[in-house]
């Protein structure tokens, strides 16, 4: 597999269909030995929110790393036509760290500036604008670790905007957020997609992914890719989670994991805990 990175691409003329930001053709990749993910065949268009579903250890983090060009790959072709920005889970970062929200947003300028340059006035303006964009203008000077979980998540999105990323890779951004924070974040992601950015969002909330444009189901191999209405059948969900989907009283659906504490590893850690579907 070869990763083709084509950074600058002119925006398409109005009226044309959305350009593809990343495309995988028969990609498998891993860290030597058995591939960690295989059979990837998808195209991520600009302006789409793509839900990434799968069990822990199902290859979601591996896919992110492949899109970032960090994964030694085995076969197939993966083209990435846009700059990727990562929005990690906020628990990965040090919350006792002496940085403000603005400092964190400014980290997005590292990949833009030559290595000896420090962020100047233009970069600070861009960072302030990005924080405004995610609704955190007034919190720019607050210490990152003192912000709420939802606010921290949006600071990390602002950082990706400062990077000028057109394809955002979000790692379970809704994990641990309360209802109002989730709603705020959901609205922000819709706006970013409307701007023409592509969003790949890993999540455990199947019903949430139903409201997005596309879903990619991953369980060490690609199970399905397409519009949620076409793809999210009971059979696909069962193959995705290697488990039985049960109807919950009250109309919701839950996924019963077939095996806990199994031998699925991948570098980087994902949340432990049951996958679930809210009613």
């Amino acid at each position, binding site marked *: 597999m070869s990763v083709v990175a084509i950074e600058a691409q002119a925006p398409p003329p109005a009226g044309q269909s959305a350009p593809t930001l990343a495309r995988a053709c028969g990609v498998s990749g891993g860290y030597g030995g058995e591939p960690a993910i295989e059979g990837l065949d998808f195209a991520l268009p600009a302006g789409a929110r793509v839900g990434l579903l799968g069990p822990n250890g199902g290859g979601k983090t591996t896919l992110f790393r492949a899109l970032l060009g*960090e994964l030694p790959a085995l076969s197939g072709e993966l083209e990435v036509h846009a700059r990727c920005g*990562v929005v990690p889970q906020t628990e990965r970062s040090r919350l006792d760290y*002496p940085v403000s929200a603005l*400092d964190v947003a400014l980290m997005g300028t*590292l*990949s833009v500036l030559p290595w*000896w340059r420090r962020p100047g006035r233009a970069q600070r303006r861009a960072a302030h604008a990005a924080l405004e964009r995610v609704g955190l203008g007034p919190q720019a000077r*607050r210490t990152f670790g003192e912000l709420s979980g939802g606010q921290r998540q949006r600071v990390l999105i602002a950082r990706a905007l400062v990077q000028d990323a057109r394809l955002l890779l979000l790692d379970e951004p809704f994990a641990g957020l309360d209802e109002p924070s989730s709603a705020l974040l959901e609205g922000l992601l819709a706006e970013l997609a409307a701007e023409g950015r592509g969003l790949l969002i890993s999540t455990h909330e199947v019903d949430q992914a139903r409201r997005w444009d596309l879903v990619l189901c991953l369980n060490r191999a690609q199970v399905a890719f397409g519009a949620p209405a076409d793809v999210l059948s009971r059979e696909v969900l069962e193959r995705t989670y290697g488990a039985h989907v049960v109807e919950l009283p009250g109309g919701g659906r839950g996924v019963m994991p077939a095996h806990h504490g199994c031998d699925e590893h991948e570098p*980087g850690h994902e949340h432990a805990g049951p996958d679930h579907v809210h009613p």
Partner: protein
Amino acid sequence: MIDWIADPLSDPILRRAALEIVLLGVTGGLLGCWIVFYELAYGAESLAHALFPGLVAAALLGLPLLLGGAAGILAAALAVAIAGRVPGVGRDSAVAVVVTTLLGAGALLALSQSTPPGLGELLFGDVLGVSDGDLALAGGLALAVVVALRLLHGRLLAVGFDRSSARALGASPALADAALAILLAAAILVAVQGLGNLLVVSILVGPAATARLLADRMPAMMAVAVAVAVVAGLGGLLASYHADTAAGASIALATVALWALAWLARALRVRRPALPSSAT
């Protein structure tokens, strides 16, 4: 009070010692802030102890201490790497075993009957005996650390914040670690001659640990750490002059005293109700 400070400083030996301490304080304060957040304090202490036999050997052979120290650090790093690969021995245990062995071997050499006297100074330092060469070296080191940390600031900040996503931002964790390790080794090599093998860590970790209690932004923390290092260093030096105590040990105790004061100040501040935020 003025006499308490001015009297000793009329002595050229004390003035040189003060200059050395200021230079090492700038180095240790700045570098220490990263040592604290990269959790390198144990590594720093180990490096300082492990280079001891190198220092003793150089002193016995009449070679420059810097050369012996550098060889000592290389040998220690190699020994740790090898010991860490022995199955069933964790990395921390490997470091502890190697460092204890090397420090013990160095002490055996330094304190044996046939060794010329004065090598005990290698353990506790002799800041009053710094030469012009030592001062020039400390000045060069301080300058190099200031320049390197300024250039690397953004990358060090991003890697320390979140190692797993730093690479996607354009900051390589391996490069940040390597740069810090080199700066740390250089700082220990130079500082160990003034402050001694056992106390060098006090200037590399103590001021930054104190600053962390008081500052909530990296640049402010660095400024506070340098101030703490210089104040504790000069205060300890003057106290040692008046009380006729060992300079290095007095400086180390002064550093710890400032840390305790900062801890107390913070504890009192936290107990009071939070002040209304002006940041909105």
